[in-house]
């Protein structure tokens, strides 16, 4: 059993000023129009957030608090009802900026393509040469544990395997900002851990900015530079926590005493919000 390490050459050197703001939200809200005489639904915000170039930022929050909505707004897939969004200094509106890759919460594999073509899809669109793509895809699939399924079609895969295909697709394009919406949701804890570590490697090597929405507090604490904890709906950041890990962190970081402290903190912040989210409706 050997694991192929993912050695990736960044398309662009990691930003020299790691504190440069890569993506920024100012006073953003998202209010869904009420349907058929129902009142509008306030789903998000107001939130303000600066994603630093090259940082690993995680978002945690109770179910239905507006995390996916936040991601959509940053990506330009969903227009903010108020406030402004910028990516690399340019306002984002209604169009996904170049350099951003997204892994959605739902299964987004293309059923008519096999695993290889699914993984290669984004890079092909971006015009990466075919032999370069092959190399990247092969790496990504090996790394995702899907090598034996290179020529399988999505229907032949389990839920977790499909999710991994989507992660591979986003990785292969080498984005500067990677938005991940609960990408490991359908994976078992062990696989999740392994994926997390590989994600850290990738992040270090490419210098990309990562925003990860996750339901796992451990994961958030272990992987991130900063963790945004969201309130129940309408989601706002109730606290942003700096972990202070070095870039060289890995799963052993979990043994650091601060790890326990941080998880406990996030946990206690979330407990109240989750109860609120479940209970405030009765």
């Amino acid at each position, binding site marked *: 059993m050997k694991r192929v390490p993912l050695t990736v050459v960044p398309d662009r050197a990691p930003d020299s000023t790691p504190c440069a703001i890569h993506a920024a939200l100012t006073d953003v809200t998202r209010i869904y129009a009420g349907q058929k005489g129902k009142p509008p639904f306030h789903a998000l915000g107001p939130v303000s957030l600066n994603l630093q170039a090259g940082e690993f930022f995680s978002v945690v929050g109770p179910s239905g608090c507006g995390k996916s909505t936040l991601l959509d707004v940053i*990506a330009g*897939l969903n227009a903010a009802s108020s406030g402004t969004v910028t990516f690399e200094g340019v306002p984002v509106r209604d*169009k*996904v900026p*170049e350099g*951003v*890759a*997204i892994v*959605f919460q*739902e*299964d*987004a594999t*293309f*059923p*008519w*393509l096999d695993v290889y073509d699914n993984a290669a*899809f*984004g890079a092909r*669109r*971006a015009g990466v040469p075919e032999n370069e793509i092959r190399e990247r895809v092969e790496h990504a699939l090996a790394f995702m544990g899907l090598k034996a399924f290179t020529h399988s*079609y*999505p*229907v032949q895969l389990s839920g977790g395997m499909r999710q991994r295909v989507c992660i591979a697709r986003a990785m292969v394009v080498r984005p500067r900002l990677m938005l991940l919406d609960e990408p490991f949701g359908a994976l078992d804890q062990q696989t999740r851990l392994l994926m997390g570590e590989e994600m850290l490697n990738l992040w270090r090597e490419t210098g990309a900015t990562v925003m990860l929405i996750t339901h796992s507090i451990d994961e958030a604490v272990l992987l991130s530079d900063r963790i945004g904890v969201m309130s129940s709906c309408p989601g706002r950041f109730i606290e942003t926590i700096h972990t202070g890990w070095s870039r060289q962190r890995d799963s052993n970081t979990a043994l650091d005493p601060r790890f326990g402290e941080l998880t406990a903190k996030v946990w206690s912040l979330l407990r109240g919000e989750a109860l609120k989210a479940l209970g405030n409706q009765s």
Partner: protein
Amino acid sequence: MKLAARWRLVLVVAFVGALEIASRRAWIDPVSFIPPSKMAEGAWALLASGDYTNDILQTLANASLAVLLAVAGGFVFGVCLFKLPRLRRVVDPLLLSYYAVPIFVVYPVLIVIFGLNRWPLVAIGFLFGVVAMATNTLNGLERVAPVLLRSARAMRMSTIDEIRLITLPASLPYVFTGVKLAVVYAFIAVIAGEFVLAGSGFGFRIAYAYNNFDNPTMYGLMLLLLVFVGTLNMLLHMAEERLYSRTRRASA
């Protein structure tokens, strides 16, 4: 699919056999209907005689042209309706209602526009096929999972690429149904047009045989038509199976 083909064969053979017996025993009035074996003889005779070759080729050419135009036009039209909801809202009620008007009433207009040649017939075939194609395309586009469209946006695809690479493959089963219906409607319309109006072609020959109670020729021609359209449909069906068997969950 082998299984389905086999069953289909069994079904067709059984049906044809039953018709054969029923008509040979004269349970069905022989003036109206002849045994399938006689139809086959008729079809063979008229193929062998060579008298009908021109008519058959002419109709096939016209219908094929109409199909091609209807499929291409219908697809583009369907995509436009999908992309332009405002256009769609306005056109939607008219879209399918025009099938209610016996379309050959516009034939004189078409003659004025195109002249006395093959194009009025092609136009009728096109007009009849295009809406079925557009409607199915539209249905298919609406069924594309939103997450796939979001993926397309995430990859910053141009409209053309999005259609080519995401919406078309994702809605292909519907597009195929559209193509199949366009084939059928184009044939119906071209032949009905020849029936009423033209002096040559499959439809005219059928009408002539029909009026002359020439059952072997009429049913022979119908059999040929059935074989043509059936084969075309089977080819489409097979292409669809090929493309789509692997994206469907295996049943057993």
